[in-house]
């Protein structure tokens, strides 16, 4: 008697592809694929084979070619790593990865045509010979901030900490070239201040997604304002929009504000110039002392 039974209720993967169109020679690219099961009532394993005749040796599975699918786990990740060798042709490479589920001990039901489920991952890679410097803004955040404050004659402005989640969609490290704010009154009609970021924004590695911070000084008193922001990549505006900026009275938030770098040029000069003068005086004094000693010796 020949028979078959449904062995597994269901199996799937997401996303069902490995795709990158901006690889360069020596690029390393990783992509995670989730293997999902709707009814993981018994353990299985996923057997992975790469069918990519031209470039199979570039492809590896970080977790190995046999990945356990434990009982009770509805989703198990697998990470496809692509390491592009030096000297490969600049062109498109296509292939597939097949994932097949099986019992951990490879046993099948006796006297039946057991059915194992699997899924196919399409591989679509393109190796190019040019640098692409680009990113996608996936998320922004604008937390409240303290207003600026004075210490003596020095005014330390409030510090906007504009958070951005960037996905590097190019193949070189990238960060926004400029993050700028046009701050209006609460009605959005009167422009009060224009500022750009003052810090060095962390660069995101190729194909990675990371959180970065742009710091901007604000000289406005506590209140609610409308901030129109722009995130630029060179001349390209990657994202712009409007947010509510809440400036709270100084001391409302336990966050660090601006230090010396936040001071205006004149305030910086008011510190630096006296220090320089003092140093010059000390230097001149030392020089004079040394000269007089030299004269005495002679």
């Amino acid at each position: 008697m020949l028979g078959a039974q449904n062995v597994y209720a269901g199996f799937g993967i997401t996303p069902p592809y490995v795709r990158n169109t901006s690889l360069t020679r020596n690029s390393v690219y990783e992509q995670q694929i989730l293997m999902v099961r709707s009814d993981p009532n018994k353990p299985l394993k996923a057997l992975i084979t790469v069918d990519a005749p031209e470039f199979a040796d570039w492809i590896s599975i970080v977790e190995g070619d046999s990945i356990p699918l434990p009982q009770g786990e509805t989703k198990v990740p697998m990470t496809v790593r692509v390491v592009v060798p030096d000297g490969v042709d600049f062109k498109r490479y296509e292939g597939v990865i097949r994932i097949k589920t099986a019992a951990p001990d490879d046993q099948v039901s006796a006297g039946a045509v057991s059915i194992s489920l699997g899924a196919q991952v399409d591989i679509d890679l393109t190796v190019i010979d040019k640098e692409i410097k680009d990113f996608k803004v996936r998320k922004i955040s604008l937390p409240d901030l303290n207003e600026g404050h004075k210490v003596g004659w020095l005014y330390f402005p409030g510090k906007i900490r504009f958070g951005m989640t960037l996905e590097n969609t190019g193949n070189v490290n990238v960060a926004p070239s400029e993050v700028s704010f046009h701050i209006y009154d609460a009605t959005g009609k009167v422009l009060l201040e224009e500022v750009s970021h003052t810090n060095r924004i962390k660069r995101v590695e190729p194909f990675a997604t990371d959180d970065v911070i742009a710091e901007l000084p604000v000289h406005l008193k506590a209140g609610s304002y409308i901030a129109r922001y722009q995130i630029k990549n060179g001349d390209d505006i990657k994202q712009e929009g409007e947010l509510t900026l809440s400036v709270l009275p100084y001391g409302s938030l336990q966050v660090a504000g601006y230090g010396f770098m936040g001071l205006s040029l004149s305030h910086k000069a008011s510190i630096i110039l006296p220090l320089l003068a003092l140093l010059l005086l000390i230097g001149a004094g030392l020089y004079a002392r040394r000269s007089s000693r030299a004269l005495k010796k002679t």
Partner: protein
Amino acid sequence: MLYNESHKLPLSTAGKVTVLTTLMGVLVFAFIFLLNLGSKEFKTVEAQSTATTSVTVLNTPPQWTELAYEQTESSTSTPTNSGDTVTWVGTATDSNSENYQLLICSTNATPTPGTSVVDPQCGAGATLWAVSASTASGVQASAATTTTEAFVEENDWVAWICDAIDTNARCNSTYSTGLNATNSSPFYVNHRPTFTLFYDDSPAGPGSVVNFYASSSDADVIDTADTLQLVVCNDPDYNTSTNQCGAGGTLATSTLSTGDQTASYTIVIPTQDQDYTAYGYIVDEHGHEATGATQGSDSTLSVSNVAPSVSPAAITLNGGSDITLTQEAGETTGFTLQFTATDNNSCENASAGDEITGYILSVFRSGVGSSTCDGTSGSYNANNCYPSGVSSAIWNLSCTASSTSCTGPSDTTQIYDCTFPLWYIADSTDGTSTVSYYNTENWVAAVSPIDDDFATGTYSVGSTGQELNSLLAMALNTATIPYGELEPGTDTGTLSATTTVAATGNVGLDQELSGASMCPTYSGVTPCTSSATSTIPDFSQEFGTSALSYGSGTDLSSTTPQELELNVLKSQATSTQATGITYWGIAVPGTITLAGLYTGENTFTAVASEPAEWGL
């Protein structure tokens, strides 16, 4: 300062001439007498023996040593506010060292001297403005009058000095009208403005301009009409000394002008929606306030409720990450949505509760649009539109207001954090046209915040969408392939056995099929040997998309997976999946001699079909 040229009197010079003339006469008479120019006549008298002589030496009036003047300027530019005092000072000396009084009258009619106990009186028809106390000779005298609203605006004055003695009291015929332009006659009285009505044009929302109106006037018109100003205070604390609102602060002030006043106030953002006191005060250009019930009355500034809003940039779907479904044929939970609602009435209401109390929102594929996926229950579609209007049994959206976001009445923003599930059929938008039907779109969220007065904000669509990844998933819902019992050398005739696969993800399906040879001893680690008598080769199984005759199907292979264009549609219902049937047949080689149960293993590999074949 108006210099009162027209009110200077020339009598002072004339008086001097009179006195000089008199003195000259006396001197001439004395001269003649001393030179015996009249000795003949005297001798004649002497000849008549002795005679008694008598002369009455009159009391001389006090003399000015410092002409009288206004101690504090009272002019058109600096008038004396009604109720305030006008003070005159002047100094006189008396040859008898007797006391004197400074008398201020409205005209130069000759006054009547008084006594030590009766004040001198102004001349006929003149008004007595003020009279000083009896003042010692040589000491500056001071006379003052308290002005009232009954005074006319312009008041002439003439200052006299009179003896303050009982006998032969006299007033100096010379009078004073001041020393210079700033302290001379007349004095001016500044009357209070009239303030009859105070109101505003509220209600108005934060950021709007409210006008306060005052029906006001001022009767003072000399030189130029007095201008007025409306001052609106938060509290009834207008300070008449500083002419400013007190600690409660100033809401609005009008510019100085004549007549009715209007003062504007832009309601700050944020301001809670409620009534606020607004006390109006009218004051003239000289700092003289109006009186009466309207002065300091409350017009009640009513700040209206405005709908909250959400900026498109303040909507973050799924934390900025791609949306990945992980439950085949079910709901994937735990997706997130965060939005920051802004309310110009503040995030905190006047009762210290939440101003922003609700929301209408939807999560949808961008191509559907916010006008279709409008938040109502009728727009629900598990493929592409998840509106908050549906019951939680259908879509279990859960949103909570951040407990730390709203810092008080001066804060406009409130952050909401939501979680929600999506069904496995939610349309994918990732990849290219070969991967997803809606690859040019993405998933977005739209939000309308609602406040405690049920005002609903604009339905804003988030500016940053997220891709929803393809979920390639398949389930087998066929228990057996009923090949049945076959004798060696026979086959199933047609591809009569079936397996049914269901698309349990959000893509259409094809499938790749492969399978091992069958034998009684098969296991995954122990494949069948090539035995003509006990192994049914892999290619003995055939499959197809219909019940073809055996031999017309595609041979199964253990080494080369065969793709079957099953074209299972993308599932579009949550409860039932799109399915595809694979038809199977098998032949048992005639060389098989080993009877019994044969074991094998076929692999069904899900392959995403072309999006054009998803049935969308």
